[in-house]
Each structure stands twice: as structure tokens, then as C-alpha cells.
């Protein structure tokens, strides 16, 4: 069987959950068996009822110890469930949390790890995956030599699964949260106005050309709000203290691949491109027509961001 560990926010499935089902179904065609899902933390029962609509056998543990996320606690739960149910493959979203505990689950199960993959396939005996390497410039194919396998699936890549004709069963699972050596002292929400960079389908990123922190408030944030986008920043911007590190897109920040990526006043250094060059449509606004960002852009405006961006906001609102 195949075990999914989807994420949810207080009972509402995250967008990545349906992508997990898509990958699960691909593997199921070769590996056989049922697809099961493990939902953890407060709201897990509601999220389990939701995922069951996709023909998945859903198990939930509402134990409050699963919130906030702790890698060791989730590792214990996923590994226990995988062992209990005899999973040949365990799939988790490649969110920060997923990337953080998937390797631990692989070690614990003595399983192979396929990390941050964009595609999966199976011949019944092994599982293959594709992923980006060398700062997102290369697509690597790799295969396990045996099973089981733990897979973290890049978010926003696969088509979300449609509901199944026959829903799966929903049941509580006796899986209390394990102890952890990590004590959470405080938490702070990111400043991206509610849209998370990792999951956003549109990202608006500002560079030095935005001019100042005030330029972000005046140009980047209104544009982002108009198209329901997350706000990103370049390394130069976060180094200057205009935006928090959590907003950084690039080699040392986040890697994003939204449907639309809008680059405002940034030149496009290779380190930045590595964090966004897999976006589906890339739009760039820059006053320098020779900026490298235009080489990877589908559409570009050569012009002053102070003039072009307010016009865009006006037009997009209309």
C-alpha cells in the first residue's frame, strides 16, 4: 500500500494534499494495494473526511502534540503508520516541514529517499523520480534500488487529483504524539500577507530597483494584493534589511515555481534565477533592457518601475 501524509491547517487540507493523491495513484498503478492517508493534529478528523473523498483510506490522530510541527514527532507517527500498514511508499509534500522530516522517516524505515521530486514512476519493483539539481539548472532522474521509499513531492507541480467515485473509509488511529527534545519558545508569522511563498500560484518579487522599503509598500505590495500573490525579495534586498530573510527567493532562500512570477526591479543574478527559473510564466519589469532577467522572461516591460507598476495595478484592478 501507499501512505500519504498530507498537511492541513486546522482541518482544511492544503493544496499539496490533492497533488499527493495524484502521485499516489501513479504509484498505485504499478505497486498495487490501497492508498492510505495519515492526518495529524487538531482538525485531523475533518481533514481526513476531506481526503477520503479521493478514494483514500484516511486515518486521523487529533493529538495536540502534533502542533506545532516537530520533525521527530512527525517522523515517529509516519514511520509507525508506515510499518503498521506495510507501506511500500510514503509520500509527503516537500514543504519546509516535509523536507525536514522525510529524510528522518527514510532512515528510520531503512528506506530510500527521493527528495523534492516533480515526477514519480514505478515498475512495480522500484520507484523513480525526477528532481532539480545544480541550482535548479539540471533535471536529475534517480531510482530506488529497492522498496520501501519515502518521497517528498515538490508543491505546485502535479495536477490536483479529482474526487473518486467511491470515497475511502475514515477512522481514528491510536497514534499519540511522541516526546521530542525540542521545546518551542515562540513563533512569528511571516509578513507575506497571508499568502505563503511556497504555495502561492502568483509571486511578485522586488529587487534593488524598487528603491527602498517604502517602495515595497508603494509598488510591490499593492501589485501582489491585486493578483493575490505572495511577496518575494532578492538577496540584495534582504541583506539591506528592507525585507525579512523569510521572503528571499533564490539559492540561499526559497525555491518557487508559481504559475506567474513577476520580477520587479531586479536584474536576475544566477543565484536568484535558481530560485524561480521553473516558474510557468515569468514577467519582468526593469529599466535596463540588457538585464539578464529578460532572458528568462516570457513578457517584459523595459521601463521605470515607479511608473509601470502603478499602471499595472490600475489595469489589473479594472
Amino acid at each position, binding site marked *: 500500500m501507499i501512505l500519504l501524509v498530507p498537511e492541513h491547517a486546522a482541518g482544511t487540507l492544503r493544496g499539496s494534499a490533492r497533488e499527493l493523491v495524484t502521485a499516489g495513484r501513479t504509484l498505485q498503478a504499478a505497486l498495487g494495494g490501497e492508498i492510505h492517508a495519515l492526518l495529524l493534529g487538531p482538525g485531523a478528523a475533518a481533514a481526513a473526511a476531506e481526503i477520503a473523498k479521493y478514494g483514500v483510506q484516511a486515518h486521523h490522530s487529533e493529538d495536540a502534540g502534533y502542533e506545532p*510541527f516537530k520533525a521527530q514527532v512527525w517522523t515517529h507517527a509516519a514511520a509507525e503508520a508506515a510499518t503498521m500498514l506495510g507501506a511500500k511508499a510514503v509520500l509527503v509534500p516537500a514543504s519546509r516541514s516535509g523536507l*525536514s522530516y522525510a*529524510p528522518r522517516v527514510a*532512515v528510520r524505515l531503512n528506506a530510500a529517499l527521493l527528495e523534492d521530486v516533480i515526477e514519480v514512476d514505478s515498475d512495480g519493483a522500484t520507484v523513480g523520480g525526477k528532481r532539480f*539539481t545544480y541550482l535548479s539548472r539540471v533535471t536529475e532522474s534517480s531510482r530506488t*534500488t529497492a522498496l520501501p521509499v519515502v518521497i517528498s513531492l515538490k508543491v505546485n507541480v502535479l495536477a490536483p487529483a479529482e474526487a473518486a467515485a467511491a470515497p475511502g473509509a475514515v477512522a481514528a488511529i491510536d497514534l499519540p504524539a511522541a516526546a521530542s527534545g525540542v521545546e518551542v519558545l515562540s513563533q512569528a508569522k511571516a509578513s507575506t500577507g497571508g499568502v505563503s511563498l511556497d504555495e502561492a500560484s502568483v509571486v511578485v518579487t522586488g529587487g534593488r530597483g524598487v528603491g527602498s522599503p517604502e517602495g515595497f509598500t508603494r509598488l510591490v505590495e499593492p501589485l501582489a494584493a491585486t493578483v493575490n500573490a505572495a511577496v518575494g525579495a532578492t538577496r540584495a534586498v534582504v541583506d539591506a534589511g528592507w525585507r525579512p530573510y*523569510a521572503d528571499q527567493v533564490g539559492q540561499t532562500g526559497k525555491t518557487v515555481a508559481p*504559475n506567474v512570477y513577476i520580477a520587479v526591479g531586479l536584474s536576475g543574478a544566477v543565484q536568484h534565477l535558481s530560485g524561480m527559473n521553473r516558474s510557468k510564466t515569468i514577467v519582468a519589469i526593469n529599466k535596463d533592457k540588457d538585464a539578464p532577467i529578460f532572458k528568462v522572461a516570457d513578457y517584459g516591460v523595459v521601463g521605470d518601475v515607479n511608473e509601470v507598476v502603478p499602471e*499595472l495595478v490600475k489595469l489589473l484592478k479594472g
Partner: protein
Amino acid sequence: MKICTILKQVPDAEASIRTSGDRVDLSGVTFVMDGMDEYGVEEAIRLREGGAQVEIVALALGPKRFEDAIRTSLAIGADRAVHIETDETYDAISQARILAEAVKKEGAELVFVGGKEADWDSAALGPALAEVLGWPHVDWTTKLALSGAAVEATHDTDSGTETVKVALPAVITTQQGLNEPRYPTLPNIMKAKRKELRKAQPADYGAATALTRLTGEAIQVKTRLNKLFSGDAVESATALVNALRNEAKVL
């Protein structure tokens, strides 16, 4: 306290990557110490400068060329190094099993690992290493302080940031923002040549077999439209919105 910092040598970010057949061809590429690993060496030095009694051991698993990166870490301030030299290809999990044995033999209580490798784009080594050791880990760390036999660390999460307290021993994965790594000075580069760089083999640490194998590498760059609009701001913005809505059918 003994601190291990794990090092990797990777292609310089500015180096252009080519393939030959269905593999990446790294011949002629300039290699550097992975920038993500520099934060760990720097943080270890800062703990010492902050008054902690520490020995900093650089630990690397890889081919002979890794020596350059190891020397760099010694020049930045690591006290000595262990190079587990091999041409064998290990994946992140099997690397973690070998390095965990090395960490155990060193008796380290704190291990720094770069948050994301610039060649494999992988963030798996730190968490996997912690799991083999049975230790907790904190990833994407931007702030760290010793607090008795524990560390307090601030790190990035899916929803923002979080400050945690973790009892040692622990693995910390590093990233930009943790500190500003210093450059090796010429006297320190000279001094580094006299520091101990011990060679070892994977077999000294129980070896390990990779459970995945590479089957192909390809450079697939999406063809971009490169449609540029220029001139009057109103006109070019209108042209852009039209193209996005009617041609790309987005927004």
C-alpha cells in the same frame, strides 16, 4: 565541547553547467566550499569567541578535490579536519550513515550542516544525520545561542519563524542570515597548512550502501517567449496586461 562542521565542495554558482551524454560534466568547472557550509564554520568560531570552550572539527566525505574546501575551512578557523576520501557515489541517506559514525567517534555534541547543497539542491543530510544519531535537529537556522547544555535557535518554518530550545547533542542546519562568514586572511591560510588534515575511508565508519542510484541528468531549460514592451508606461503596461490575459491566459 567538540563541534563538527560538515563540508562539501561544489561548483561555483557562477560556473556554467554542461552535460555530456546523460550526465553532468564537471570537467573544467571551478569548485568552491559550499557557501551554506561557511555559516557553520563561522558560527562555531563565534561560539568560541563568545567564551565557549570548543574544538572545531571539519568533516568531509567526498573525492580528493574536496581538500581545497577543507583547507578553506581550516583557514577560516576550524582546528583540524577529517577527510573521508572516496570516489564512491553515496546518496544523502548513506552519507548520513557514514558521517554519523564519524561524529560519534569524534564525540561531538554539536554538528553544523549546510541547509541546502548547491550541487544536489538537497536539504536531506542534516535531518538524516540527526536521525541516525538519534538527536534532534533544527533546520534553516538564522540565530543561535548556547544556553547551558542546550541551544536556543531561531529558524524558518512554513508559516514564518520559530524560536526553539534544544538540549545538546543536536544537529543544526545553517543558512544565510545566521552570520556573515569571515574571509580567510593570508596569515591564517599559511597557518592552515600546518593544521591536521587526517585522511580516512568510508570503511572506517562502517561504509553504507546507497538505496538510490542516478539514472540520468539533463539540462531542460524552458523556452521563454522574451516578448518585451517598452516606451510609454501606460502603453507598455496595457500591452503587458493584454498579453497576460489574452495570450498567456493568466491573471
